[in-house]
């Protein structure tokens, strides 16, 4: 069953529609990369998919139900969100931060119980951050915090996880770890939607790419067919070359001589 379907979706705010007529679907166990230059509305699209801002036209369906008609906790049980790894104001322990992912599964007046803490610890173990449980989440590195947010999304037991540039501000090793983890989450049945500025990431890990161009044009499909040199050049406004190496890897680089 299709997890998410956008139909003739218009995103933006009253009086300022950023893009319209968007149609795409998210299938189970898939990785979708969202590409587009800065300021094109990637975050606005994410907020619309998560129901943080209402669609200006058209609609988003989650598991066949219109998002606009769903309660907050119902939405949260289908789709989770991983913000960029900024610190929060209060110094929660990492475990307390992760267990907040269980909120949508708790009754209105309930507290997380042993089961919820166990699920939170399992999520942390899966990401290799079990040893951070008692650390102050405002005093760990940005990469560790990013992993903690991913663990929180896992603990949320949603079917789709939306990640806003999960690899931005990560070093080489953490970046590889996060991408590897994303692929493994997809193999285990989750669907990931992530914004990225690196087309090579999309070639490497995406089943589907969604490209949002200035003016709101949207193209979606497998990376090999969508991410042509022509489209990428148009997208970023500089000539771009797409090459495939002997090992089958795609290399994307601007055709600019320095």
């Amino acid at each position, binding site marked *: 069953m299709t997890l998410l379907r956008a139909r003739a979706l218009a995103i933006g705010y009253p009086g300022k529609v950023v893009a319209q007529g968007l149609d795409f679907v998210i299938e189970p166990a898939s990785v979708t990369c969202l590409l587009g230059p800065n300021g094109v509305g990637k975050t606005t699209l994410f*907020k619309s998919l*998560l*129901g*943080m801002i209402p669609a200006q036209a058209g609609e988003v369906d989650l598991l066949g139900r219109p998002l606009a008609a769903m*309660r*907050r*906790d119902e*939405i*949260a*049980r289908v*789709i*989770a*969100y991983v*913000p960029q790894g900024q610190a*929060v*104001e*209060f*110094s*929660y*322990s990492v475990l*307390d931060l992760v267990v*907040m*992912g269980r*909120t*949508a599964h*708790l009754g*209105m*007046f*309930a*507290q*997380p119980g042993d089961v919820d803490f166990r699920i939170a610890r399992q999520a942390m173990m899966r990401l290799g951050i079990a040893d951070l449980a008692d650390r*102050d989440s405002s*005093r760990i590195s940005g990469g560790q915090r990013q992993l903690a947010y991913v663990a*929180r999304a896992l603990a*949320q037991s949603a079917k789709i996880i939306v990640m806003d540039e999960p690899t931005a501000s990560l070093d080489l090793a953490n970046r590889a770890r996060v991408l590897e983890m994303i692929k493994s989450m997809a193999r285990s049945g989750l669907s990931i939607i992530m914004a990225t500025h690196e087309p090579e990431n999309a070639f490497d890990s995406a089943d589907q790419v969604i490209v949002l161009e200035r003016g709101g044009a949207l193209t979606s499909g497998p990376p090999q067919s969508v991410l042509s040199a022509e489209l990428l050049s148009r997208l970023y406004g500089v000539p771009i070359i797409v090459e495939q190496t002997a090992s089958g890897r795609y290399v994307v680089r601007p055709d600019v001589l320095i």
Partner: protein
Amino acid sequence: MKTGSTLLALTALLLAAIIVAASVGPFRIPPLTVLTTIVARLMGDVDAGPVQTVLFQIRLPRILAAALVGAALAAAGAAYQNVFRNPLVSPDILGVSTGAGLGAILGILFGLPVVAIQLSGFAGGLVTVLLVGAIARSMRGGGDALVLVLSGIVISALAGAGISLAKILADPYDQLPAMTFWLLGSLAGVKAGDLAVAAPVIVLGIIPLVLLRWRIGVLSMGEDEALSLGVDVRRMRLVVIAATTLITASAVAISGVIGWVGLMAPHMARLLVGPRFDRLLPASLLLGAAFMVAVDTIARTAARVEIPLGVLTAVIGGPIFVWLLARYRRRAA
């Protein structure tokens, strides 16, 4: 568990503060006598002797009022700091206290009886927050915390101007001292009857905070994240603002404007039990109550005249706060 024992210690601290407070004063009652008299009274032994009269007619109502006001302001502050994601926010951020102040001051200016002054203070607080909410709603992005806070500041400033005007118009020998005393906070005039009116309202305001403690805690993640975690942010915020307004307005109505406690008590509690709201709320309640009982005891015993509470909370609370901050920051680093 660590949190459990901290809460236990805070409860003991509160009880100790109450007993000491009940024993000191112009008519000294030894702490042990305080205890035995309370137990005897609870067993049904009522007499008209001086000990029981002082204890049950004068001291305990005032002490309970102090505990109630302290707990109320601390709980409201803790909830607001979470909702607005800002540890520097206090319960009067949306203008409750200033509005209540204006209401009470007008009551004094028009020579109303004490009960009417309290009611007028309570109404002033409620009207102010409703006004702030209406202004914020009429703007784009009205649910925004920033818009709410800014509207609160504007209306607070207006109410403050109203207070200044009322002070100028007031009779300088009779009304002005009453106004000043009220604006600095005092529990000197509290009767058991006031307590019976205010306590249920304050408890009514605290109940939703206790029931919704986990979701209120999640609000501290910020609007977008709380939404994505499944919390109906707007409704939750509305509940907290309504509950907190009720709590603060009733507290102000019986004690006058007491600053600083609502900001500081949650902070001290956070240093002791961490930021999780389900732990922070009980710790703030206990700490706020104990602190206010101690401060009010000093207010009525330290000098020949009553010292205004607002002055003492700042003078005593400030150094304690700095000491705690220094101590725990060092340990955390």
